[in-house]
């Protein structure tokens, strides 16, 4: 699976963007953006090549794994949500003062996408960026599945 994914076509995205941290991590608000296709129990699941996202409120743990590919292990997620979506670990880091705070909302995409990823690049990715900035997020932790 790794060898297959490593050889899939990559879009040309130009120069690397770079946003340096301007304050200590202990003062930063952190959010998770996962491509594990998670969604809350009442929310709509993902379809193949679905470029849209789902909002994961910070206090929700009743999350489903909606990834449609059969090539990923789901037993780890079933045993422990944090192995995919480390929300409890972030809460602990906030309680310790390692990070400033945990964002009120996090976001999930489906990691299996068509090659150009147009919807994520031009529509849904920027939309999530705006929501994150609305919540005054400084740092985003991205987790795959």
């Amino acid at each position: 699976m790794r060898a297959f994914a490593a050889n899939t076509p990559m879009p040309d995205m130009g120069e690397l963007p770079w946003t340096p941290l301007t304050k200590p991590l202990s003062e930063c608000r952190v959010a998770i953006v996962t491509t594990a296709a998670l969604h809350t129990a009442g929310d709509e699941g993902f379809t193949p090549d679905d470029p849209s996202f789902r909002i994961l409120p910070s206090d929700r743990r009743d999350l489903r794994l909606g990834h449609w590919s059969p090539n990923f292990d789901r037993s780890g997620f079933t045993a422990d949500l944090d192995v995919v979506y480390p929300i409890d670990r972030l809460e602990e880091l906030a309680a310790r003062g390692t990070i400033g705070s945990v964002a009120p909302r996090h976001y999930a995409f489906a990691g299996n996408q068509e090659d150009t990823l147009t919807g994520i690049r031009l529509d849904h990715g920027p939309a999530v960026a705006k929501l994150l900035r609305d919540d005054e997020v400084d740092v985003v932790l991205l987790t795959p599945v």
Partner: protein
Amino acid sequence: MCVLARVLEAHGLSTVALISVRGVAERLPPPRGLYGEFPLGRPLGRPDDPEFQHDVLARAFALLDRPSGPVLEDHPEVIESDAQPLACAMPPRFDPDLPEAVDEARGLRAAYDRTLARRGVTSIGRVLTADQVPEALAVLAAVADGADWTTAGFVGDPVQTCHDVRTYYDEAAVSLVDVAPDAGQGEAWFYEQTAAGRTLLAARAQMREQGAPALIWLYMARATR
């Protein structure tokens, strides 16, 4: 995910990505990435191991101190998947008149329910409820025996049906063992040790023989199976 990291970074957010496929991150680098050679589907490495998960996060957040990028570092620990099937007790045969997989799924219901009670949520529900899993396995068993897959009685898309069946077994398995199963153990257990896994693979082979579209039969199970 590397694309998302770049999109978010371009919109003024500092990102750090946990990387599961190094070859992708090398060709489309995110601003900051920590590669973990862990089983796919476990980006924090080990379930039920907060100490290890905090180690992954600490190494990831440390990349935020770098003055320029791209930064791609490796977590020093490699976690191999165990290819040996999960060792756990299975329900006894109860009704020999039923296909073995149907009987088995009914027998695993208590374990599935224990997991559901603990987690409060199930990932089943694409096209089946837990109650419908034995019925779906009866359809797969009929197809495995040669029934025409187009008229065998799938209640929904066969791929989604197989997802739900596999999820039912994954969720039941968590309550059959004391510690979280290794990634490879769970998969080997399902496909090699359970009647459901064997039935699913046999049905898939039959559907391929019957000319079902590859996008259906291939995605009913892991590609390497």
